[in-house]
């Protein structure tokens, strides 16, 4: 049923429909609306689940790791400093191969204290062994959360569903919330592959000395690479049932594009209007919306960008000393190709600064004028 709800509640509705059994979270703006709704669902009996109150995000992740080890579907949500505090446990979750799903609301890290949109918090967790999926609107948030459970449980790796602070989490829009029966068809009851067994006790997270550790890491890498196929199959099924598909990335008008804009999150949605407007003016603009960041869709990225003269990556994040994180990943992906497209990095929209159509047009025009891509990222929209 279509409803006007906010993006945060797109997550909550999906988690309710996914029949999650154990949740644990610590409140942090802008994640609070997600978990408030979930704790109310538990209280009102709309969910047959246990919501564990904890004193920190570190404990929240520890709690869901414990619950997931016990063999039930689990969920948590956080943002920014909360995610940073979880960092250690993120490794524990993936290393234990637990299919935990987490909503992560992209928010800046302090200081200066800032509760607004910024991608650095989630991107800084890229090496933790978590699958990362970025969303651009409320419907995608709900759909991605549902798919995340399937994906996590298929490959036995945890999934982070990432949504922009406020631009997505606090914005009301029309979201189609499916009914329980349909969701059950897509997402059956959880059957754990890694789970404690009272009859055959074993210890998890044991020491893995040099003869074993490397194999275990290789195994995680293989699992991560298996996501590509698994994701495609799951999305096919999702499309069959719900009629929506998103791809690992979404290439718009790239075949003949001169400059292709690349970005993730809500800015990509705004960029769609910019690209359409430019096309109307006869400008050969293209757009790649990054949805899957881990594993990185290298093949799809190469394919989408193969004809572009210039790739303009819009990063709402910064790896200090290098530049935008998406730009680096794309450069790395393209480095093995013969065409080796030029990649210009643009940094904008940090700490909640709006990414307006005007900003995106400005970036496009700048890229269009470039012969060569500059080594350093260009910061757009700085106050003079």
């Amino acid at each position, binding site marked *: 049923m279509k409803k006007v709800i906010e993006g945060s509640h797109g997550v909550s509705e999906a988690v309710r429909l996914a029949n999650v059994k154990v949740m644990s979270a610590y409140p942090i703006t802008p994640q609070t609306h997600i978990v408030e709704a979930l704790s109310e669902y538990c209280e009102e009996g709309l969910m047959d689940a246990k919501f564990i109150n904890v004193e920190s995000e570190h404990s929240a992740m520890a709690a869901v790791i414990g619950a997931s080890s016990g063999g039930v579907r689990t969920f948590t949500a956080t943002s920014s400093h909360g995610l940073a505090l979880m960092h250690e446990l993120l490794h524990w979750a993936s*290393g*234990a*191969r637990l299919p935990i799903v987490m909503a992560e609301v992209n928010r800046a890290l302090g200081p200066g204290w800032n509760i607004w949109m910024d991608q650095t918090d989630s991107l800084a967790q890229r090496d933790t062994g978590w699958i990362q999926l970025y969303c651009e609107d409320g419907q995608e948030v709900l759909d991605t959360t549902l798919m995340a459970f399937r994906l996590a449980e298929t490959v*036995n790796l945890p999934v982070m569903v990432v949504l922009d602070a406020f631009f997505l989490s606090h914005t009301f829009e029309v979201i189609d919330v499916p009914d329980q029966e349909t969701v059950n068809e897509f997402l059956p009851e959880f059957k754990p*592959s*890694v789970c404690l067994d009272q009859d*055959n*006790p*074993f*210890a*998890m*997270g*044991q*020491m*893995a000395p040099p003869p*074993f550790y490397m*194999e*275990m890491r290789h*195994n995680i890498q*293989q*699992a991560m690479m*298996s996501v590509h196929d698994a994701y495609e199959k799951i999305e096919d099924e999702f499309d069959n049932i719900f009629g929506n598909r998103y791809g690992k990335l979404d290439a718009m008008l790239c075949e003949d594009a001169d400059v292709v804009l690349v970005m993730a999150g809500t800015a990509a949605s705004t960029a769609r209007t910019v690209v359409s407007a430019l096309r109307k003016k006869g400008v050969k603009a293209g757009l790649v919306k990054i949805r899957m960041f881990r594993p990185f869709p290298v093949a799809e990225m190469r394919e989408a960008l193969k004809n572009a003269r210039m790739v303009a990556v819009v990063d709402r994040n910064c790896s200090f000393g290098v530049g935008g994180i998406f730009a680096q990943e794309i450069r790395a992906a393209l480095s093995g190709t013969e065409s080796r497209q030029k990649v210009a990095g643009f940094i904008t929209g940090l700490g909640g600064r709006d990414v307006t159509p005007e900003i995106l047009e400005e970036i496009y025009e700048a890229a269009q004028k470039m012969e060569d891509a500059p080594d350093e990222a260009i910061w757009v929209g700085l106050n003079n």
Partner: protein
Amino acid sequence: MEIMVSRSSITTTGNNTGAWRFVRPVYERHTAPCSAACPAGEDIPRIEALVSEKKFKEAGEVILMENPFPSVCGRVCFHPCETACNRAGFDDAVAVNSLERFVGDLLDTSDGSLPFEAKEKNGKRIAIIGAGPGGLSAAYFLSRLGYSCEVFESEEKPGGLLRWGIPAYRLPEQVLDREIKRIESLGVKINCSTRLDSSFIETANESFDGVFVGTGLGSPIMMNIPGEELGIGWEVFLKEVKKGTQKEFKGKAVVIGGGNAAVDVARTLVRLGASVTIAYRRRIEDMPAFGSEIEIAISEGVEILELVAPVAIVQNAEQLSIELQSMKVEGQDGQRAKVVNDGDKKKSIVADRVYSAIGADVEDEWKGAKTVSRPGNRSALYNEKIPVIYGGDLVNADKSVTSAIGSGKEAAIMFDILLAEGGSKAGDEEAVKKTTAACQVGDGQSLSFEAYIGGERRNVVEGVVKFEDINLNYFEKTALKDKNSMKADLNGFDEVESGIDEVSAIYEAVRCFNCGICTDCGICSLFCPELSVLTGNEGRRIELEYCKGCGICVCECPRAAMSLVKEAE
């Protein structure tokens, strides 16, 4: 795809981490400061642990192990336990005395069911002179050791000071009767209205194997002032009231003295309808009476005139005039103020009656007790043909009911050592010292009967639990509840303090740190990194194959019930 995670079904029992150990944790019972301070040596932390678990009967039985008078002591003991309580350093002392009364009053042994079996009669007979708290306690413990006891009491009912010296509003007679009945149910024979004199000891060996003398302080201390004979002795007065020959007195009374006896007389007079003034030679804060008793007396309308010493009592028509010398403070005399005559300032007050309550002394008949050797803390041994042991107020430094009980117990243990079959010879003071030292409660004056008969308390190690030994992380500060509520009915001799209810008792017992005893809280097991704290049918124990001696359990133990000991080299 195969999922590789670091998991192991191989038991770690192959890692015998116990081999790393050079110290080992042990469960050790330590003495709580309250128990060490208790004149009867009660196992207070265990009593409170049981109360907190709602095991009131079991708690009462733990008291009975060391003290036959829980209901009496729960009312009249001056509770040094509460002064010593470690919890006082945290918020407030546990209301041990109120809890003892609560437990004692619930303990019904009227069907003769006692929580222990008396030893088989050993054929030995002990004569006990005086049925006060000391003599009755001696009879109680001796009976449990297999001795036949015969008590000789000059009054018509047993109880001694408990019956005649403590007013009913503090200790109702039926409470006393109940506890005496319990002692009699052990087979103790009490011969009332039978006064013995000291010549009895000369020939006692013909019928008895030992004699306990607990005749108390039967002789009032005189003021040695002109007109003293116009006054009334406190012990005479209180006895008359108890016997019902004194029912009403509406006049004005002056009570001379500052101890509990003076306050008891004053509060009793209030109940007879008198208006009462206490005249005391030092200041109110120097009065030896319990502070709480003084407060209640004042609240009941007793006037206290401080810094006055009586010099004469003169008949003044129908009334008496008491001449008083004013005193002033000049320095300290121990805890109390030292007072001297304030020049020749004098005053006089007029009253219908004057009561003297400045104390009591040993009757001449039994003064011999003061000069004999003292192998025990609370009893004196005078050895003739058979052991003769003096106890109670005859020998105790503090003249309290509970100390008398403690001395009766000590005497019973001494008799048992001295009369042991094939054991120590009569008069073997060394044997007495050695054995009693082994059952001393902490560093206090009391002996534990449980330890003597080989019970669990025998394993208590030396030393008393200090405040620093308690792990305060496991305790929360709590508000102090009203210990007892007061009923201010001055028209009769109903009990003034009402006691606490079950809810308050459990609340209060939960507050107890349970210093030095294991309450099975499980903290040691929770923290043990090797899971080597095991619980089973044999109780809690350490699996030494795996205990690596890290000591976390000992550090975490909330109540100092564990210690680390060095492994033998």
